[in-house]
């Protein structure tokens, strides 16, 4: 069976600086793939490229076997099959929680308003925020905002969920509620590609971990192998630094 996402030989440069240098990654249906690596290793750039928010310098991105990185493909139509959750939540501050969530279903997918609202309320109930439907984002805590952002990305049943360090901007005591939600998404069989610094969490939810360093995919494999018994020197060094920082829970 074709993987949901195939990234082939992806190259991305900003001026002279090569951020991604020939990366290959596959994400199969119901699989959770976690990208780890230091800041600047290319994790976020990779996610933006997959979401077609950047022009590629080489390589291909295939969604369900179709090359969507071809400039002849309408990127807007591709993006609606993916849901993205950002580090800084990026909720629309002038729209209520309900409108944030139902915007894409109504405007992009043509769902009628009542059906979109009903689905949004069901999703909000699942993340424990049904009473916040009419609130505005600035009235919510960081953890609540991020849970709304996840619901917004789920509202149109995307084929692939991209999570870009979604707990990095949260206070430590709010990280748990967001990770719990992501864990339940993984258990529901969502197809997820995520970047994170939470190694303990990565070990629990990941089917496969990919370690990026300097824009190159250094090592990938099951979490127990990559995190506990890495083959590559560079992976070992990175993990040693993470342990020294107390981040390997």
């Amino acid at each position, binding site marked *: 069976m074709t993987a949901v996402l195939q990234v082939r030989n992806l190259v991305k440069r900003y001026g002279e600086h090569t951020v991604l240098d020939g990366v290959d990654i596959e994400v199969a249906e119901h699989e959770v793939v976690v990208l780890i690596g230091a800041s600047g290793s290319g994790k976020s750039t990779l996610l933006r490229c997959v979401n077609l928010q950047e022009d590629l310098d080489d390589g291909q991105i295939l969604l369900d076997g179709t090359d969507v990185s071809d400039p002849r493909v309408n990127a807007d139509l591709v993006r609606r099959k993916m849901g*993205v959750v*950002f580090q800084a939540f990026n909720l*629309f501050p002038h729209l209520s929680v309900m409108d944030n969530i139902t*915007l894409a279903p109504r405007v992009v997918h043509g769902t009628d308003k009542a059906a979109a609202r009903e689905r949004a309320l069901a999703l909000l109930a699942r993340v424990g925020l049904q009473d916040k439907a009419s609130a505005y984002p600035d009235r919510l805590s960081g953890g609540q905002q991020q849970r709304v952002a996840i619901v917004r990305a789920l509202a149109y049943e995307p084929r692939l969920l991209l999570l870009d360090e979604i707990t990095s901007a949260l206070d430590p005591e709010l990280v748990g509620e967001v990770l719990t939600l992501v864990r339940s998404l993984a258990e529901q069989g969502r197809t997820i590609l995520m970047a994170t610094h939470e190694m303990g969490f990565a070990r629990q939810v990941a089917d496969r971990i990919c370690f990026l360093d300097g824009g190159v995919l250094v090592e990938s494999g099951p979490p127990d192998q990559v995190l506990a018994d890495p083959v590559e020197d560079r992976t070992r060094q990175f993990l040693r630094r993470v342990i020294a920082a107390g981040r390997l829970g």
Partner: protein
Amino acid sequence: MTSELQRDRLAYKRSRARRSTGVAILSTLVFAVAAGWAISASPGWPRVRSSFFDLPTVAQSFPAILAGLWLNIRVLVVAEVLILVLGLGIAALRTLRGPVWFPVRALATGYVDLFRGLPLIICLYLVGFGLPGLRLTGVPNDPVVLGGIALVLVYAAYVAEVFRAGIESVHPSQRAAARSIGLTYGQTMRIVVLPQAIRRVLPPLLNDFVALQKDCGLISVLGAIDAVRAAQIAAAKDFNFTPYVVAGLLFVALAVPCARLADAAGRRLARREGAV
């Protein structure tokens, strides 16, 4: 129950507040008296009073000037609507990205450069006398319409820049989020960027509106019988400048509510931004 210490502090703060208020009132009075004395004691004051502040002339000229002001208000309202539409359109064109849009962008930029730099009075002459001079069919020759067109041309350039500043102040992450859920460029602009941008530029827009109010008086140079022109006619009757002062005060009275509205909008925005 407040403690002895706190009561003592509050009493001290109140006494300081009373003192500041007293100083403020006294200094204002002293200044007003001094300024009033300096003006009324000046050698030319009797002449100035009779030619600028003559009460019978006020009563005589007031109805005509008020009727003229009504014309100014109508021009103001129609022009402002057109200015907002045109300004927003030009701002949107100026923020288009990509080489395909270069000609459109260049045209919009050229428009803004031209009409922001051109003195309003010259624009009024060019449109008011030049346009009908072409003798094209369908070109209006009503000075009110022509004056309104000139005002719209110049003010739309200013307002476009205000809108553009607002559009560019919306963080790129908002566009990224909007595109990520599948919105097109146009939908992103309309649903996500513009509502946030417009809210932010409301105070400067109101400021431009106040400026437009008084500049509406300049259509008088084309011969429209507005408040300024009515004052001019009344003043010419017996070489008394009082009608100009009447017209001036009426324009000020028109601007004050708007200025307070702009203040309030600014405060509300500051509160909102502070709360985020």
